């Protein structure tokens, strides 16, 4: 009897914490998304589904921009991260851990501080652009900050290590004998890569996409710092509605819309990839 209860005793405190401060808040937010009212007069649950349609029509631009930026940054992460992960996994030798550590170095500096550091580096009259402008290599009105490119670049920068790690883990598991076998069967190096190594690394790419696409699409730090006023994402809107306008119902509806779109996207992607059990891959 005691043994049967033991696991429940162990998970009780942490499980309760997650239930109270993660699951219940989601339910509360769901109910908020169907409410009407304001801070002064209070909010009442009126099953106001219009919050969703209003949100979709009012903030369609930002929603679409978030997904486009999310896709672009995720794609850029895959393209940039794959060769690095490949090189570390197959050619890193005894220094593999050192290289991985170097890739992870940015995590020892606050995310916000790193993003401001880029703003500083790429400022219109900053240490990179102003010498180039003085020499005449760039026109005087050239700017990087406050463009969509700067936002996508910032997002790619901030989430690249999250893509390198899982791809590395997947490639590291590939048995070199499999590649030798492919080459013994007259596969060229390119064919061996395309038919053997790349398919085996797909679970890693999948995990990487999961770890980058979701946070990148919901991010508002990069778009605020690097994007100026014309490149706001849905995260900016949610944050503003919550903390400035205190329009909780609208903000809650937008949060759920965003989460639903991201979940659907992830599942479609998993299906397209032929990954049967998303959870299994992700939690492995």
């Amino acid at each position, binding site marked *: 009897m005691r043994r049967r209860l033991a696991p429940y005793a*162990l998970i009780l*405190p942490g499980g309760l914490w997650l239930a109270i401060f993660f699951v219940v808040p989601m339910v509360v937010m769901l109910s908020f998304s169907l409410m009407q009212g304001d801070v002064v007069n209070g909010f009442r649950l009126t099953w106001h589904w219009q919050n969703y349609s209003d949100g979709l029509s009012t903030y369609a631009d930002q929603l679409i921009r978030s997904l486009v930026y999310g896709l672009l940054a995720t794609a850029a992460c895959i393209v940039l991260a794959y060769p690095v992960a490949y090189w570390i996994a197959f050619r890193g030798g005894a220094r593999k851990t050192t290289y991985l550590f170097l890739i992870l170095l940015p995590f020892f500096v606050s995310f916000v501080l790193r993003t401001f550091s880029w703003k500083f580096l790429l400022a219109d009259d900053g240490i990179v652009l102003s010498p180039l402008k003085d020499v005449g290599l760039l026109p005087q009105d050239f700017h990087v900050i406050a463009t969509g490119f700067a936002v996508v670049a910032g997002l790619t920068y901030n989430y690249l290590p999250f893509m390198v790690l899982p791809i590395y883990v997947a490639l590291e598991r590939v048995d070199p004998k499999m590649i030798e076998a492919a080459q013994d069967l007259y596969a060229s190096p390119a064919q061996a890569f395309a038919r053997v190594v790349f398919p085996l690394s797909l679970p890693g790419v999948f995990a990487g996409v999961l770890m980058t696409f979701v946070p990148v699409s919901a991010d508002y730090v990069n778009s605020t710092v690097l994007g100026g006023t014309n490149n706001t994402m849905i995260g900016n809107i949610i944050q503003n509605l919550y903390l400035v306008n205190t329009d909780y119902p609208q903000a809650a509806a937008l949060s759920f819309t965003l989460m639903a779109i991201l979940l659907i996207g992830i599942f479609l992607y998993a299906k397209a990839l032929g990954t049967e059990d998303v959870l299994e891959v992700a939690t492995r």
Partner: protein
Amino acid sequence: MTATVVEDGSRTARRARGRWSDRLLYAYTWLIIIWLCLPIAVMIAFGFNDAKGRLNLTWQGFTFKWYGQLFSVPDLTTALVNSLTIALIATVGSAVLGTLIGLALGRYRFRGQGSLNLVQFAAISAPETVMGASLLSFFVQLNIGRGYWTIVIAHIMFSLSFVAVTVRSRVLTLDPAIDEAARDLGATGWTAFRLVTLPMIFPAVLAGALLAFALSIDDFIITSFNSGSTLTFPLWIWGAQKNGLPPQVNVMGTLIFVAGVLLAVGNAVLARRRR
């Protein structure tokens, strides 16, 4: 005869091509590493900049003075102290709660395991904006004022699953017979845990705790939703940047960076020696 010659020729060619592409990949990897570290280098360098007051934008010459005046911006110091103490409390909290869950998941099969895994997976992968927003909705609904302790609650919430996952994977590699042997030799459950299980899972607990600390001290998005008027280090930077970031921010960032790197390297060296 000719066949072997041809094959040898193509093999050499392949090896040469391999070396060439290897070199390219090697250079590329370093290029990415430099790109990743560039903003850190700039942050560290401008902590030594002899800037006038808060306008730390162009290089004015080398100085150590900001290290001496590290705590001369009072509210920045408060924010840093908040960040450190919150991270410490959140680390201890999530290490304890997460380790218990990790033990249960690694050692037992029980009803509800699937749902627990699902909730943990959701807590790890849900967008921060949504998690922060939902927790704020919860506090608003219950009329709980936001501040220091709501930040602590949020940080324990989002980091305990990371500890649980780390500890669980370690527990799965342990032989349950060792624990049973301890009990056969008369150890009570608690003694067996303290003297046998805990030392074996301790590296994973420590790794999870370090991760929790890093997540907590760095968190901006969830904290910004639930902070009320309490400021942490990232929140202070966010609020102050319109008027320019004082060099003290660079110095604090540098010190946190150096401490983090030393801790991680120390932990890795210890782990290697233990092995």
